């Protein structure tokens, strides 16, 4: 990771968005004191993330973690609650996770979705002020996911600070007030969902020209990620109609024209490209 810097304030609901392998988990691990950064620092409540006083105010749901299979949901929630100074009644944490009917079941006998909800119950068992969720909805079915997102929303309304990672733009958009976009270890954007979406909805445009064009032919036009291979031109644009109108006006002859909505992966590429351009003088 390089040059990632941000502050999350009390009561915020923040999504960290990025494709797989972007560095989201690394970022969360540094914030939780599970990994030491080679340079730079992370602080929780102004303390080292490894400080027990700071950890006593944080709940965590990691992407990869496990609990002993032979303990029941109730026992585990009670156990994790005991690590914290102001735990909530175990029944409440189990209720928030929607696991009332599984509370006497051993963890090893839960389904994948129920297991995720158990980890949610463990994260909130200590009634923390800040909660970190790393890819919380991975492996959940549609209904579990809906319930889960609702739990996060309810938690946020109680004034809790929440930071969660996801690779679904839709999920970040539905839930968060602020989205931090990370790609390949670089902070690409830190803005409201509306702003991110307006930047992300770039269309991918591709066409063939009779004579090869050069980068100079696109000077001043609303394009990003421009690639030219012989006669084939590929680019991203937020305003493809205006772009094509301008190209036609300049007398560029176009064939095999395709304009498609960019998927998230491509949108990240376009965002990264914008970020690189902003950084360059």
């Amino acid at each position, binding site marked *: 990771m390089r040059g990632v810097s941000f502050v999350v304030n009390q009561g915020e609901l923040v999504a960290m968005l990025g494709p797989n392998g972007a560095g989201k988990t690394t970022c969360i691990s540094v914030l939780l004191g599970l990994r030491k950064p080679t340079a730079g620092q992370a602080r929780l409540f102004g303390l080292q993330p490894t400080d027990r006083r700071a950890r006593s105010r944080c709940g965590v749901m990691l992407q990869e973690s496990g609990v002993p299979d032979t303990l029941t949901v109730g026992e585990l929630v009670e156990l994790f609650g005991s*690590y914290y100074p102001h735990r909530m009644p175990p029944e409440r944490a189990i209720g928030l996770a929607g696991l009332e009917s599984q509370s006497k079941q051993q963890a090893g006998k839960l389904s994948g979705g129920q297991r995720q909800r158990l980890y949610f119950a463990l994260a909130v068992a200590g009634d923390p002020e800040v909660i970190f969720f790393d890819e919380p909805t991975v492996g959940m079915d549609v209904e579990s996911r809906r319930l889960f997102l609702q739990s996060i929303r309810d938690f946020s309304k109680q004034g809790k600070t929440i930071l969660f990672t996801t690779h679904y733009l839709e999920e970040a958009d539905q839930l968060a007030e602020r989205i931090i976009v990370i790609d390949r270890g670089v902070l690409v954007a830190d803005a409201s969902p509306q702003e991110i979406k307006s930047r992300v909805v770039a269309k991918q445009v591709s066409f063939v020209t009779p004579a090869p064009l050069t980068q100079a032919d696109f000077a001043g036009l609303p394009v990003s990620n421009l690639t030219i291979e012989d006669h084939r031109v590929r680019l991203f644009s937020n305003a493809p109609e205006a772009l094509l109108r301008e190209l036609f006006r300049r007398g560029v002859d176009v064939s095999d024209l395709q304009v498609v909505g960019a998927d998230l992966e491509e949108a990240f590429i376009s965002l990264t490209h914008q970020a690189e351009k902003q950084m360059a003088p």
Partner: protein
Amino acid sequence: MSTATTQAMPVAPIGRMLWMETRAKFVARLRNLAFTVLSLGLPVMFFLLFNAIFGSLQAAPGVSTAKLILVSYATYGVGNVMVYNFGIGLANDRGRKLDLLQRATPLPPFVATLAYVIGALIFALLSLILLGVVATVIGGVRLDVGTWLDLTWRLMLGSFPAIGLGMAIGYGSSPNAAPALANMVYLPMLFLSGIFVPLKQLPSTIQHIGSVLPTYHYAQLAWKTIGLNDESTLVALAWLAGWSIVLFALTIRLYRLDQDKKFS
């Protein structure tokens, strides 16, 4: 985050954490059938088997072989609990990344480790009581209460090298490799130390190898209770303390390697 809130930041009391963690570790082990059978059932089964075959012999003037077998399998049993509890238990915790999740909570690592040790000691005590009851009721082998108490503190105190060995295996191997490694290291040590077969019946080279192993000195410590020891309690304890230092140093080294791999 807001710096105004750094004053008065409470943490949970260590005592309650330790109690909850110890109870959870103990209950989780007890419900693990493979572990329970291995560590409670095997010593009892071996004792009954060998007692039926050799129990009526005389190990030494005035001491029946039955008593020797009982004390030997009590030693095996307690060592067993330690090696498997830590060897397989820690490897499994690492495999399922429980250590990672707990590391992100306010639970201090030393409390988790202490809970592990206390839980194992209780389990070892349980194995000793079970063997005692079976030996008395079914095997008809009687030790007086004083001998049992003497044996208990010796087996508990002398089990630290076994804890060290178990932890080294737990931090140094994967969940799949740990059971095999534990058996491949621990079982030959028992054979070479005179716990399964009297050492004097083995070739002298093997006797020499055997007499430096921690299991040999552990057995010597235990056999003192029935007067069948070849070295004094003090010498045995010194050897066991030395082995503890070596094995815990190895554990710390392997633990650091594991942490480096995971957290940097």
